[in-house]
């Protein structure tokens, strides 16, 4: 029996509401505190995947880092309504630096 998980979205209302149409659980939040609470709640209730918009994520880095090394939930940043802020990409770079020691991704581009 493969365990089943729900998918959640946390973000500002305008962006998050779009994911309603896909049948995900959507929590529209306005403040970082609300977002924090929403994420913690979802993690407790057994959500396997939580999408967080970058607009909100940049305020609650601590909460997101806390779940980083857990097997689940996976917290994935998505761009908000104003487009990508580059936080998600920056996080990938941080991962690379942590593991490899140097940033091998941007060297390739430049």
């Amino acid at each position, binding site marked *: 029996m493969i365990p089943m998980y729900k998918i959640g979205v946390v973000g500002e209302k305008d962006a998050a509401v779009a994911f309603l149409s896909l049948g995900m659980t959507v929590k529209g939040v306005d403040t970082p505190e609300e977002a924090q609470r929403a994420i913690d709640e979802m993690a407790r209730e057994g959500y396997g995947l939580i999408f967080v918009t970058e607009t909100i994520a940049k305020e609650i880095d601590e909460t997101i880092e806390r779940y980083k090394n857990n097997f689940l939930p996976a917290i994935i940043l998505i761009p908000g309504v104003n487009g990508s802020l580059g936080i998600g990409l920056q996080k990938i770079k941080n991962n690379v630096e942590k*593991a*490899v020691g140097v940033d091998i991704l941007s060297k390739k581009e430049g």
Partner: protein
Amino acid sequence: MRLNVNPTRMELSRLKKRLAVAVRGHKLLKDKQDELMKKFIDLIKRNNELRVKVEEELTKSLKDFMMAKAVMGAEFLQEAISMPAETIKLEVTRKNIMSVSVPVMNFVREGNENASIYPYGFLSTTGELDAAIKKLYDIMPQLLELAEVEKACQLMADEIEKTRRRVNALEYVMIPQLKETIKYITMKLDENERGH
């Protein structure tokens, strides 16, 4: 730094055994680190590609949503999509990459098989909304792959860092320490022998 032990033959043979174990452990960990790194680099490249692509598409789709919202009005829009025809669930299994267990995710759609992806009638909604939802649907598989790959990368980066610390601790602390102590005891024993 020399270990604080008595210079006896017993101690010497004990230390030699420890050194052998440390060297072997170091080699094994080093191999693990190399292999992890290789896998990680492949994954992280994929991660980067995917993220760039997904972010771009998602931004477009959200813009469309904003358009639809502007045309229809926020209340109508919310009403139209708040009862989706299906719910989406996630099947998660574990995969083992070099002793790091990473999740493998699989979407499961629950709901009426034949239902259209548009959870509303066409009366009060506009074409913009249809287009936005269609786009969002099309991104879903990639979004999921991104989630999977990115999580794997996070977990692997952590494991690589841990392994590197262990390798370094063995290479630069444990092994030199043992070697130095062994040398010290050997010399001490030789000296005693000459003294007799």
